[in-house]
């Protein structure tokens, strides 16, 4: 740029650069068009440079470049584009020359989202998001989707034992976290804290984590954030390739195996299949076996489609089956049993190691069929259309009397139809618009054959949403975004209430219109119908402060209709020894959230800082509201209620290369959550936690070694949910406090990974990894694990992981 003999004339918005020089015989020109290898579309902003000179040109909107005033001679031409592999070409210039160049998209980290299967770019540019490659997650030895989130500051896991985990973002979980797979929201009874998302993450290639309800395209009710799983775009080449992995583990003496085979054709057609199988026996904590915690999982999927860059379609079927066991000692009869469990250092039942799983256990299956079609029009406007059908079966088994242990106590069938239509890439000068529609019909059926009162009643739910998103970008360094979404939610439920409960809660007066007149013994059938209209919105700006630092700020409004469990729950929760009641009177919650992010990227270090602050009106939560005497003794009653909640927190990340071969990473996050109306902390908020990682990767060698440490402080802010019960001790009645509120002490856990990469003659890689988790075999309990009342976390686990491509 400093060269005096070259004048620049930059046409704003065209990125067109003209070059002049003064010379005698040097009056040749070189011009042409740069196009995309795959679809022959014009590449805008590609740089064409003559190496060793100051001659260069950048392509304009029509992919054209032009360099003038060149002397005859032999040159090396270098063509580059941010999204493509650079290319060099030798030319011998004697005359003016016109020729066309083709560049091929390369796959780098950023690229994966831009060209991911569902064509997601960063969902919203003014909201910071985390993108992780599934293979990277695998390298940590994680077994479930949510385990993987442990490595992302701001995300944590709410667990019920070790095979069942739910993602927590910014201290919120359940219906407040959306999971999107293949461009559709996942619907699998996600309201329950003890329901793991029914997704085989091994069949996807990337995970995007968005903190905040910024992914308005998929819904506006996920105030905590969204997790988006997607596959990479296909290569338009005749290829057949496969990958397989085997993972063997010492804790649980089990492992997983998976394979993926993909065939692509140059005409854009592709077909691929995935298989994952997992089998584990009883897991163990440092000092004892966690009886009945083994699990198995079998998943497969098949996908075929045609992708021509400017248009395409695909059809996918996937099948997921998980059968986890639940710690046997956690099945308790009443609060007295809970009291004993809390005051015992070990679970009450410790059996010998086995692969067999008995009650209590779960069986979940999720089938999914999706069809998607897209096409880009001449003016670049893109149309997306999709339909998905999800069929989720969920069975829960408990220890029962009279040979009924094989009859589930919960048996639900949830069928969801989804329709989506969207138009994107509508460009007007500096503006870019996107709008669309999502529709949903959901049908829940709860089998009466269980012989147990339905936890979730039969219902039909309709949901219709429209959204419009816009962004204004004047230059590369400044972007303004906004989005608006409207959702209409309608529930039509049929539920039996015990007459005593219906009257006790004053529903016979408040919801008299729902009574159907049908009754059965002491139960009455009611038909609650609810309509909700929710508005959600987002606006934010993204600004580049300098070449390597960025600043984003965003405001998000989200509204969420109560979910079926918050409205209708009705029953005994065994592991918690609690009777849980829904509440027909609760209103939708409205959350306001501000997100800020500051980041800096330098060659030898980078950091990011992401604080958030939010206030939620009508925050729906469950809290103890008294004791209920039953034939099994007294039980605490937990009822869904709403309050106003204030949450704030900060996530930070810092990495630094200390010396050439050694890098250091640190991440930390903290959330403060307060129930404003009751002036007490909110329950189950992740405590202050941090990880530190030291990675040694010697140059020119094929191995790396890393060691990481997870620290979790004690959560000192928790509400008091304790209750008192009468206990007979030495022939007299004494009152005892059942302390279910107290959080466990802080802990730290040390992991190490050794990784070796081998390349064969065909340049295909094989990875061998040796992973040790909880090396010190330290015994600790996790505040976010509902099994913490009964047992401690997993002990040492050694893994061998083999990953090969062919």
């Amino acid at each position, binding site marked *: 740029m400093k060269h005096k003999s070259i004048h620049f004339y930059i046409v704003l918005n065209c990125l067109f650069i003209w070059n002049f020089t003064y010379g005698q015989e040097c009056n040749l020109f070189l011009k042409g068009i740069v196009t995309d290898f795959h679809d022959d579309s014009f590449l805008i902003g590609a740089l064409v440079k003559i190496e060793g000179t100051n001659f260069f040109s950048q392509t304009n909107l029509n992919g054209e470049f032009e360099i003038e005033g060149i002397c005859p001679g032999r040159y090396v031409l270098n063509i580059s584009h941010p999204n493509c592999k650079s290319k060099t070409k030798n030319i011998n210039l004697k005359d003016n020359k016109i020729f066309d160049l083709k560049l091929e998209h390369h796959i780098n980290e950023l690229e994966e989202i831009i060209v991911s299967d569902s064509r997601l770019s960063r969902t919203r540019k003014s909201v910071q998001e985390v993108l992780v490659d599934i293979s990277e997650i695998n390298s940590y030895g994680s077994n479930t989707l949510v385990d993987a989130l442990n490595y992302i500051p701001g995300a944590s896991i709410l667990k019920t034992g070790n095979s069942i985990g739910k993602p927590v973002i910014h201290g919120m979980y359940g219906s407040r976290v959306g999971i999107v797979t293949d461009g559709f929201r996942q619907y699998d009874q996600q309201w329950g804290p003890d329901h793991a998302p029914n997704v085989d993450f091994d069949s996807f290639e990337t995970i995007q984590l968005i903190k905040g309800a910024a992914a308005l395209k998929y819904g506006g009710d996920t105030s905590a954030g969204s997790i988006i799983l997607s596959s990479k775009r296909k290569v338009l080449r005749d290829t057949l390739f496969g990958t397989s992995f085997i993972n063997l583990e010492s804790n649980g003496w089990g492992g997983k195996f998976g394979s993926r085979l993909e065939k692509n054709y140059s005409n854009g057609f592709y077909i691929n299949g995935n298989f994952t199988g997992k089998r584990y026996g009883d897991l163990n904590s440092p000092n004892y076996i966690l009886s009945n915690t083994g699990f198995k999982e079998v998943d497969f999927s098949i996908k075929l489609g045609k992708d021509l860059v400017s248009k395409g379609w695909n059809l996918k079927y996937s099948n997921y089956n998980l059968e986890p066991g639940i710690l046997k000692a956690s099945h308790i009869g009443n609060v007295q049993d809970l009291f004993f469990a809390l005051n015992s250092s070990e679970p009450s039942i410790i059996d010998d190691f086995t692969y067999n799983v008995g009650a209590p256990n779960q069986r979940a299956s999720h089938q999914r069929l999706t069809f998607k079609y897209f096409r880009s029009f001449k003016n670049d406007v893109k149309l997306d259309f999709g339909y998905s059908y999800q069929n989720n079966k969920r069975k829960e088994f408990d220890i029962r009397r009279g040979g009924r242990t094989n009859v589930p106590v919960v048996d639900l069938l949830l069928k969801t139809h989804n329709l989506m239509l969207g138009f994107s890439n509508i460009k*007007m000068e500096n503006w870019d618009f996107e709008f669309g529609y999502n529709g949903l019909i959901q049908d829940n059926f709860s089998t009466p054959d269980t012989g147990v009162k*339905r936890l979730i009643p039969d219902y039909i739910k309709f949901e219709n949403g429209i959204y419009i998103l816009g962004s204004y970008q004047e230059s590369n360094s400044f972007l303004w975004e906004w989005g608006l979404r409207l959702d209409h939610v309608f529930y039509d439920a049929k539920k039996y209430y015990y007459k005593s409960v219906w009257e006790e809660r004053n529903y016979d007066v408040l919801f008299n219109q729902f009574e159907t007149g049908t009754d059965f013994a002491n139960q009455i059938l009611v038909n609650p119908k609810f309509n909700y209209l929710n508005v959600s919105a987002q606006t934010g700006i993204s600004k580049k402060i300098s070449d390597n630092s960025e600043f984003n700020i965003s405001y998000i409004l989200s509204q969420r209709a109560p979910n079926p469990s918050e409205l209708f729950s009705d029953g005994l929760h065994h592991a918690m020894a609690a009777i849980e009641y829904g509440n027909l009177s609760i209103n939708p919650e409205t959350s306001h959230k501000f997100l800020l992010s500051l980041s800096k990227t330098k060659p030898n270090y980078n950091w990011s800082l992401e604080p958030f602050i939010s206030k939620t009106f009508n925050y729906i939560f469950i809290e103890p509201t008294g004791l209920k005497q039953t034939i099994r003794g007294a039980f605490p009653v937990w009822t869904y209620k709403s309050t106003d909640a204030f949450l704030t927190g900060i996530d930070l990340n810092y990495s630094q290369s200390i010396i050439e071969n050694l890098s250091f990473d640190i991440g930390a996050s903290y959330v403060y959550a307060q129930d404003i109306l009751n002036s007490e902390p909110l329950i189950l908020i992740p405590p202050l936690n941090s990880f530190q990682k030291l990675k040694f990767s010697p140059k020119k060698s094929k191995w790396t070694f890393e060691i990481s440490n997870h620290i979790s402080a004690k959560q000192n802010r928790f509400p008091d949910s304790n209750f008192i019960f009468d206990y007979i001790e030495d022939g007299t009645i004494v009152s005892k406090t059942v302390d279910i509120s107290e959080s466990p002490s802080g802990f730290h856990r040390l992991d190490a990974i050794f990784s070796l990469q081998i390349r064969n003659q065909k340049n295909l890689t094989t990875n061998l990894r040796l992973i040790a988790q909880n090396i010190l075999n330290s015994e600790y309990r996790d505040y976010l694990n509902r099994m913490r009342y009964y047992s401690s976390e997993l002990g040492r686990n050694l893994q061998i992981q083999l990953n090969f491509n062919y």
Partner: protein
Amino acid sequence: MKFFTKFSKAKILFLAFIFTISCSKDDPDAVNEQEFISNVILTIESADGTSQTVDWDLSEMNSQTINLKVNTDHNVGIRFINSSDPNDIEDVTLEVIAEADEHQVFYEFADVSVNVTSASNDTKDGGRGVLLNSVWNASSMGTGLVRVYLIHQPTNFNATTRDGLGGFNDVAIDIPVSIVE
């Protein structure tokens, strides 16, 4: 402008979708709760021929007082009933007898001292009495209460405290006890 007309179209489509769809679910079958116990019935017969029936009813959450005579043997029988559907009253005791190997009845007394042993007509699993039929003998006068348990899958049948027995409670109710001369 073209864009906005498209948007309105989508809006109209959306509203149309809301108003055109109306279907409803069939009435579900009511669940008659199995394994549910609504009543615990104790029959107390003293050696001198007097007898008493004490019915702990879930809907009332209480029962009358058990009256015992000091230093006298009483035969106590216990039955578990599910009467939640008045047209289909179930005797849950039969299930307990059928699964004697994983059940134990247990009585815990507060403020009174009563000795409980297995009766000759008790249901037995090996040598162990399930205590569906038991003999009670109070050693002193007074008033107190008995906590009646039906324990499913105890871990240690020989224990003498509720804590020691393990397992989980299918029944845990309190009944007042009065012991007289």
